[in-house]
């Protein structure tokens, strides 16, 4: 969305006041009821603690927030989310870039690979979670069994690092298609004359990639970095819930999972609401960052 265009207006417009109001009404009503009211409630609830019987609410001001940021589990969840997001972004973008560079080298047949590589996009994160859980299941998993033959005892139910590795790979797997499509488009938009000139000068593939292709791809790369971090933050709930449920010992409890666990499983509404507000601030910051960045990018 280019913000420069946001204020552009049509020269020719229709007359009338009631008709346009009627036209925006459905969206405004739904937005008010399902977005603004709940968001307001989240902010309101974050300032209270309900009593154990749920009969009354006690005003605690910023107490919930103060408690959150002194709570070692919550701070650990921040660290977990950061590690998780960075790993998911690097793995999925790395694999996607590798495949896109190869597909870009083909004159014929890259369309076939593209058709096949799109598949994981259509697979829901939760379903991807089940697929990977099945391969690494401690009792029946094929990969677990072969790792056992090799002498490695895989158990993500007990080992936090293995659990993290599994949710990262499952989340990254589903994201490869998206990154591949954007990388391939970015690569194909690089003028071939530039690359061929370098080839004539004797630059080999890696030199060309490092000095020409990768720098020219940087707008795509930056865009994908932001989008993938947002994905890892908010859309991987299904993967975490199906594979680890945040465990073992909260080692895969990312922030979004914790809002759910505290709000619905733990019934700690004040804390959950405060966490929602913190997440809101993070989304807001990411959105603004994305806008700023995209604006700059348009002026290239």
């Amino acid at each position, binding site marked *: 969305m280019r913000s420069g*265009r946001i204020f552009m207006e*049509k*020269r*020719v*417009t*229709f007359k009338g006041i009631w*008709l*346009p*109001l009627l*036209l*925006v009404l459905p*969206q*405004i009503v*739904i*937005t008010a009821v*399902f977005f603004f009211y709940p968001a307001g*409630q*989240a902010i309101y*609830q974050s300032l209270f603690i309900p009593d154990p019987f749920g009969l009354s609410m006690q005003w605690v001001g910023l107490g919930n927030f103060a408690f959150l940021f002194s709570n070692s589990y919550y701070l650990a969840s921040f660290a977990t989310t950061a590690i998780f997001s960075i790993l998911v972004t690097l793995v999925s973008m790395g694999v996607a870039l590798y495949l896109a560079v190869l597909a870009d*080298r083909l004159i014929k*047949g890259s369309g076939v690979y593209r*058709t*096949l590589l*799109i*598949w*994981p996009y*259509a*697979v*829901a*994160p*939760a*379903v991807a979670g*089940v697929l*990977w859980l*099945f391969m690494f299941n401690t*009792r*029946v998993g*094929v990969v*677990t069994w072969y790792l056992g033959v090799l002498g490695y005892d895989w158990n993500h139910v007990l080992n936090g690092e293995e659990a993290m590795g599994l949710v990262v790979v499952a989340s990254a*797997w589903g994201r490869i298609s998206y990154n591949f499509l954007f990388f391939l*488009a970015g690569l*194909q*938009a690089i003028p071939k004359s530039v690359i*061929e000139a370098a080839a004539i000068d004797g630059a080999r593939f890696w030199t060309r990639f490092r000095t020409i292709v990768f720098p020219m791809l940087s707008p795509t790369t930056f*865009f994908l970095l932001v989008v993938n971090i947002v994905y890892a933050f*908010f859309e991987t709930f299904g993967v975490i*819930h199906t594979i680890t449920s945040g465990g073992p010992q909260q080692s895969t409890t990312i922030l*979004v999972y914790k809002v*759910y666990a505290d*709000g*619905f499983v733990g019934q700690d*509404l004040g804390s959950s*609401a405060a966490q*929602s507000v913190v997440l809101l601030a993070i*989304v807001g910051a990411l*959105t603004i960052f*994305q806008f700023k960045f*995209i604006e700059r*990018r*348009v002026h290239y």
Partner: protein
Amino acid sequence: MTAQPDPLAAAVTAPKGRRAQPDGMVEKRGAGLWLTHLGLIIGLLFIFFPIWLAFVASTVSQPEIVKPPMPLLPGDHFFENYRKALVAGVNAPVAMMMLNSMVMALGIAFGKIVISLLSAFAIVYFKFPGRRVFFWLIFLTLMLPVEVRIVPTYEVIANFGMLNSYSGLIFPLIASATATFLFRQFFMTVPDELAEAARVDGAKPMRFFWDILLPMSRTNIAALFVILFIYGWNQYLWPLLITTDPSMNTIVMGIKQMFPSGDDVADWPVIMATSILAMIPPVIVVISMQKLFIRGLVDSEK
């Protein structure tokens, strides 16, 4: 909500035209070409292995799975497993969950498209009081993914008595600014002369909308539909919260519910058959409408 690298999209959708010269210096031939294919095939194997394994598991019997290692080639229990999943399932028949998913995905896709078309039309083609305010109200929703406000939204749905209902599954997810912006962007590129002519001819605004604007938006609508259908079909957290009745479960959230609690062994062939069934509709949509899908992806990001 994203950058719009339109020329990039053109490059994706029409790679052949760009590579008119058959003997580019840089493209590999001979051994290099085979290495390129090999590298891509290794990547494809990595990507397809989980899906292949799920498919194999859906065609063998439970004893073959619980005694690892399971076979890597399909067995002969395909019809048995899929029939069992579709008709009986574990908590609810999978056919019923697929129907729920279909209603939810179509409801979200159509709902979003309709309310976004109407509000974008109003914002672009009318000057009415409060237009700016409405615009910014819609704009702000870009910043509020459903994951962030689950508890209060759940309470709203509960108060309306919309738990375990299609309207509860659909309505909270159809308000999003992305589609409105997309149509707004597109309407801005429609030549003013068309509206001018319609006005001179004395056509009512809605007539202009139906007869001119809507037909012109066909491709955008279709591209957005592909993205929104997948978005709706693949929802997980929201159905998990508001459908406690197994007969209202959607297939994507229902799979996890098929795992037994405690130490019982899961019915893997049926669960894997369900996983395959859960990915078939969105995969068909993406593959069969690939060009629209890529266009939608680039236009809307989500």
